[in-house]
């Protein structure tokens, strides 16, 4: 058997094991082990790959800030600021069909301005928005789907750890990448909102039959201000701090957490006991997610050794189809890989393979980065490995909502992302208009 065939076989095996109910990280690790053993003919080498990956793959400044972004999110949620943002967004959109769904998207777009990772968005709004939506008559599937879908805004609207990673890999200005993320992020939020309203009108079987026209959710101007101010302060702190040069986007998670903590204690919305609960919760979500990322990176290294990605990359590079052909194949590959790998693994594998192909085609690498990030983020929503969906499952205290429900609920949003991706590809100024 060639390494290429082994790589493909391991894909099938891993997928089947996950479907049968083997823990996802364990399935990835086992598939990596067997895959490397088969490719290199040495179980010892396979063991070493596992151990080195466990020790090294998340051991970086970049991944080190993940718990801080999650912590910031949970403090925002525990102190009620996330709820406030949700109330504000909801008050604005409550007259719409599917208004709570639109409100969730809006609140996520606001929260995206302070978080650098999507898993924090997914965790926070699972807590805040899902129970509310279910209470108001939305189907659980739709409720978790909205949260999963809108969580991707967290890494498209700056700050964004994924855009930083792309900047590192391609030597592009992170500031430019951040600016380029704003347009597509807002466009995606609007597209989600339109999609939600449309689904609420024409697809009640999916959305449910939310109660309408109640005055619940209305806010007086005073309430509006009171609820909007804390989150506005936090956004001011995080974005202001980054753009005033007080701290880096990577440090923003910690600074946001400190800000939320001070604000929470200052407004008497937090107690030490609740802070402790938040810390434990942060730890569990971080551990779950990072353990998945470690496992996915083992798997991606096994795949790299199998030559499957390089073979596919070569195919895209040699396809001789012009820029559009290459881009379409590239995006297709990214989305396919997004089904089985985590975002950073896909970028680590594919971006270095593709840069030498697209650079001679005079591609604007900032635009290429945004296209890459949107395509990569579709993978957060697609089975069998969809990190946002996993986070929602891990945060949700409701065994009646299954992983399959969340994936199904997220599917329409993945489709909307695909449409927005197409628009950004066809009209690059959507991304680049803010850059001189």
């Amino acid at each position, binding site marked *: 058997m060639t390494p290429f065939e082994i790589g493909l076989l391991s894909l099938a095996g891993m997928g089947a094991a996950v479907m049968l109910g083997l823990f996802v990280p364990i399935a990835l690790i086992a598939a990596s082990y067997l895959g490397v053993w088969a490719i290199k003919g040495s179980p010892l080498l396979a063991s070493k790959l596992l151990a080195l990956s466990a020790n090294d793959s998340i051991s970086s400044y970049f991944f080190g800030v993940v718990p801080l972004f999650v912590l910031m999110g949970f403090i925002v949620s525990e102190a009620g600021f996330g709820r406030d943002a949700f109330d504000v967004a909801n008050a604005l959109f409550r007259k719409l069909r599917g208004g709570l769904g639109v409100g969730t998207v809006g609140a996520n777009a606001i929260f995206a301005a302070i978080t650098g990772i999507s898993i924090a968005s997914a965790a926070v709004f699972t807590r805040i928005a899902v129970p509310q939506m279910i209470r108001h008559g939305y189907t659980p599937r739709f409720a978790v789907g909205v949260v999963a879908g809108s969580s991707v805004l967290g890494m498209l609207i700056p700050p964004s750890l994924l855009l930083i990673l792309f900047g590192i890999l391609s*030597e592009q200005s992170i500031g430019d990448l951040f600016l380029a993320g704003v347009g597509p992020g807002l466009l995606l939020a609007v597209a989600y909102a339109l999609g939600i309203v449309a689904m609420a009108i024409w697809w009640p079987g999916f959305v449910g039959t939310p109660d309408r026209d109640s005055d619940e959710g209305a806010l007086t101007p005073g309430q509006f201000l009171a609820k909007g101010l804390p989150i506005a302060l936090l956004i001011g702190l995080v974005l202001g701090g980054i753009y005033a040069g007080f701290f880096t986007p990577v440090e923003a998670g910690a600074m946001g957490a400190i800000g939320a903590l001070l604000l929470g204690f200052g407004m008497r919305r937090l107690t030490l006991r609740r802070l402790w609960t938040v810390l434990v919760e942060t730890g569990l979500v971080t551990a779950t997610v990072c353990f998945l990322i470690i496992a996915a990176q083992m798997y991606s290294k096994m795949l790299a050794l199998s030559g499957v990605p*390089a073979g596919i990359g070569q195919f895209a590079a040699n396809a001789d189809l012009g820029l559009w052909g290459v881009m379409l194949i590239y995006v297709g590959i990214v989305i396919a890989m997004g089904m089985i790998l985590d975002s950073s693994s896909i970028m680590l594998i594919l971006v270095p393979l593709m840069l030498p192909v697209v650079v001679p085609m005079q591609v604007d690498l900032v635009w290429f980065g945004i296209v890459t990030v949107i395509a990569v983020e579709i993978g957060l929503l697609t089975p069998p490995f969809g990190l946002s969906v996993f986070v929602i499952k891990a945060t949700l205290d409701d065994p009646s909502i299954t992983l399959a429900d969340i994936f199904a609920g997220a599917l329409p949003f993945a489709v909307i992302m695909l449409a927005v991706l197409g628009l950004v590809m066809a009209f690059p100024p959507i991304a680049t208009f803010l850059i001189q």
Partner: protein
Amino acid sequence: DDFNVTIVAGHPPVFRWVRMMPEAFIPTVTAELTKLGHTVTFSEQYGGALAKVGDELEAVEAGLAEIGACSSLFDPAKLAVQNVTYYTPFVSSDVRLVGNVVNDLHANLPAMTEAYAENGVVYIGAPITIDDYLVMSNFPINSLADLQGRKIAAPGAAINWLSGTGAVGVAGNLTTYYNEIKTGVYNGVIVFASAALPGKLYEVAPHITRFGLGAQYSGSLCANKDWWDGLPAEVRTAFLAGSAAAQDWYTTDLENAVTGALAKMAEAGATVTEAPDDMRQAWADGMDNAAKKWATELDAQGKPASEILKTYMDAMRAAGAKPLRNWDQE
């Protein structure tokens, strides 16, 4: 025979020290082995696909890759003595000279190659040199006093260079310099021209001051020891020819790039200033002798860093370099 060789590098192939593999190393090795009637297939794993920056040596040691760009700069615990140049600034700006001297050190000083052997790998040449470090800032530097209280980012051991200048050293890395200077997290960086140009650093830090902090050595190609020892001698020779070709390609390409880089940055509006000799000397004189501390610390661990420091400085002086401080003789 047919050889399957995996090459690992943590950096993506936008960097010259990765590009030297497809540009020079692989073609040369392939040609040499073909002459001998062998075939070879390379699997190139760059940009963190198999190992990230600083973890290449571990991947080669484990046998996940046969050959890697082993970084001493980013793996200072395992390749400790190799970092001799980063503790001896103001010695020489000549990348070719630094590369040759470090390559000779590896050939002549057993302690240099022992560091590799201890980690199950073999030094196979192609020293990765870094062109002369300079200061790029968003403020003009007319005297050393201008550095007082300014936040200057520096990579790894180079943060020691700022001791005595009054500048505040901030740990940073190449990939985020642009953004961090632009927003003001720091006011300047210690960086090299060949990276500053593609990174467009001159846009945010247009004051380029050449202090002659020096060219550096940051790593080399290494091979898995068991694999290497099992190769026929003629095949090893073919790989070494590849390393020699890579070193030559890399150094020539780098030298050309450096000359062009400074000119292009000046064209783009940057001011390039040559620091006067007394200012350079004042900087050098004001520094702690970090080399001494470094050598003493490693000596105590049984790694003869003092000997390596002396041999390196002697070789540089013998080749005509005029160090501003004789770090080994103080």
